[in-house]
């Protein structure tokens, strides 16, 4: 059994989902890569922002 940290799980999730989204949602390799990177950044970025929001709400 593996026990990744919450952030590691988020990064792995974003990596896999962005790969599939990039390949399936765009038509040319260049646009696939750009869209995959965009999705990855949005997944990770939104997780970090929401984490800080929840942290500040809980204080």
């Amino acid at each position: 059994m593996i026990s990744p940290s919450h952030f590691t799980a988020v990064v792995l999730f974003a990596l896999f989902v962005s790969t599939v989204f990039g390949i399936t949602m765009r038509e040319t390799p260049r646009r696939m890569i750009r869209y995959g990177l965009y999705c990855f950044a949005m997944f990770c970025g939104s997780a970090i922002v929401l984490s800080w929001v929840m942290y500040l709400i809980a204080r």
Partner: protein
Amino acid sequence: MATTPNRNSAAGQAASQSGFVYLPLIAGWLVPGAGHFLLRKWYRGALLAAAIIGMFALGLAMQGKLYASAHDVLDLLGLAGDLGNGLLYVLSRAAGLGAESVQVTVGDWGTRFIVVAGMLNVIAAVDAHNLRTGRKPS
């Protein structure tokens, strides 16, 4: 069948319509990436297979739950997501992999990984079908 007939030519259109058009869809659902392999999209198929199988395997490694029955609506949705994994789900159930119930925190994440892997596999299979029918150009 296994060429890339999407050049807007009459011959390409005719070739894209010949044969069993649902084969990439079904193959892609049963085995992640197989639909793209049938269409000779080797790199895309390999990346899709690595992403989906990797996500499914990580879900199992995190003691994720494989839904076997549906007692409420949420279980039903989880089961539908799991079934999207095709043969991965069937083989894992046959091998007794996956937790019966979520015992640890990472097990909950693992359960989500498995369900999302199934949904991503359905998206990939539909993409292979769209390539096969010419709805997606290349």
